[in-house]
């Protein structure tokens, strides 16, 4: 057996954060949801095969912090027709696992290396002087979870499901979201409109 992951974040704290993020998305609380993200955020919903380069291949969503802001501003206008009226949403998150803890330099402090989870050039920068920084402000906790989501709107009810990878960081004593990748089980199939926050 490998050693227990070294992290300042315990699983209960992590779960509480994931549930809160999910609730803000379900309830279209755009301000609260936006405040969870770090400045170097990345929000990615791949299309088709998992291992594509999102800078050269199409994705369903590939938002940096600026585009997350644009997406939310559009939703807040109330004239984003595909979310006006907004979908009624509820999601369940399960199988929450801490996959690894990495220093911001990319050094793995515990757990497995998740090569390929962050595209080239998107790894958050910052000089990190080694293992003293493990956990907390100098590290990212990489978390995997499964989800199922029911969406209801006039068009009908859709069931969405998939695997989410999160990168969590502690900033000023709060857990923040630096990266969220949502790999839909049916990402290689035709998808209906996905205009809510998944």
């Amino acid at each position: 057996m490998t050693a227990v992951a070294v992290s300042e974040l315990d699983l209960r704290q992590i779960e509480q954060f994931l549930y809160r993020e999910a609730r803000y998305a379900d309830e279209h609380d755009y301000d609260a949801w936006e405040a969870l993200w770090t400045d170097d955020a990345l929000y990615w919903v791949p299309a088709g095969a998992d291992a594509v380069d999102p800078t050269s291949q199409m994705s369903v969503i590939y938002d940096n912090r600026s585009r997350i802001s644009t997406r939310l501003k559009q939703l807040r206008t109330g004239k984003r027709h595909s979310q006006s009226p907004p979908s009624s949403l509820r999601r369940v998150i399960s199988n929450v696992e801490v996959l690894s803890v990495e220093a911001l330099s990319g050094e793995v402090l515990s757990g497995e290396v998740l090569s390929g989870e962050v595209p080239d050039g998107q790894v958050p920068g910052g000089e990190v002087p080694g293992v003293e920084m493990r956990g907390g402000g100098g590290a990212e906790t990489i978390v995997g979870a499964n989800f199922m989501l029911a969406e209801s709107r006039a068009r009908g009810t859709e069931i969405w499901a998939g695997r989410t990878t999160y990168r969590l960081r502690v900033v000023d004593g709060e857990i923040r979201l630096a990266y969220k990748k949502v790999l839909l089980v049916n990402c290689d199939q035709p998808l209906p409109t996905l205009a809510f926050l998944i």
Partner: protein
Amino acid sequence: MTATVRGTAASMPRPDYATLIQSDRVHGSLYTSEQIFAEELERIWYRTWVYIGHASEVPEPGDYVRKSVGPQDLIMTRDRDGGLHVLLNRCAHRANLVCEDARGNSKSFRCPYHGWTYRNTGELIGYPYRQGYEGNGKLDLAMGRVPRVDSYHGFVFGSFAADGPTLAEHLGAAAGEIDRLARLSPDGQVQLNAGWLKHRTRANWKLLAENETDGYHPQFVHSSIFSVTGSPIAALYSDKSSAVTRNLGNGHSENDLRPEFRNFGEPMRWFGTTQARVPDYVARMREVHGEAAEQILVEGAPHVMIFPNLFIAEIQVFVIQPLSVGECIQHSTAVQLKGAPELNKRMVSQSIGSVGPAGMLLADDTEMYERNQRGVAMLQPEWLDLRRGLHRERVDERGLTIGTATDETAMRGFWSHYRTLMEAAA
């Protein structure tokens, strides 16, 4: 078995298209009738030229990619001599699907059901246990093939009819718009190799085809994103715009935005940037095109709907795939221009933001298509009006009908051609 037998399509009276399609209005049943959809498959999708795929998706000998036209599952292949083939994904033995992979490279396809094997040209190579048939291992069977396949600047089209107009005749004036797109590549080559988004849409395919060059809707459907980003696109489709809507004939149409871009005269404005931000690209274009480069860089990319299923929207390409009278799939990707790496990543990024299921533009278009499909099911007033701009249409120097940026000239052209095809003899 039930005692009642439903009338077959052959025994039902044919719809009277001359009544359903008039010069200033079309009937709602065109979007809701199962019978009309069945006739469209026969008379449009399985007869006229339809877009299938792009040569850049199968660059090497042996490459293949799965494609679709309506409900038909196709395999586009490149043989060892570089020739393109479009096969129907169906075994000649028991009609199983021969190929399950989305793409790959192979000289042959082996049906997983009984092991029948075909060359990537569709020819039957062999089958297991050859003594089970007379003829010493030879059978006069092959995979189905789209009989006519032709391409233009790598855009591969097919026709399920053995005879008919050539691709050049079908494209007509629309060919010039594909030329304009290809010319934006310093190497003169478009590539569609950035992968595809597939957007399931509960609407009749014609609502999409009509919307692609409808310059009336953007200010309303897309006001949310235009207002947030301060996009200059809104002005292109305003009542004051100098852009024109052009009926290119054969059901093709365009929103010609060049008059607006010429007014500004700024290279790369069409791409929402300046030449200073893409210096290598503009330098290469000037090297290749000399003085003609200015015009190319100012006028930018076309916004053209090629009947019935290919839409080139400046930096995106869409393919419409009807599945049933009330459902279709929109396939979308970013244009990639060979020799223009500075532009290509931007085009992918901008396209991801705009198109597909979560696109900040297309999700709202699609919401409109789906609401429109519910609307056409309402009993009254039966008709969809097509009169906008009819009183101010003009004929341009090429003899093509044009209207203003927000006029329904394109839709009238679409329906005129549609009616011709649907009224044709079986």
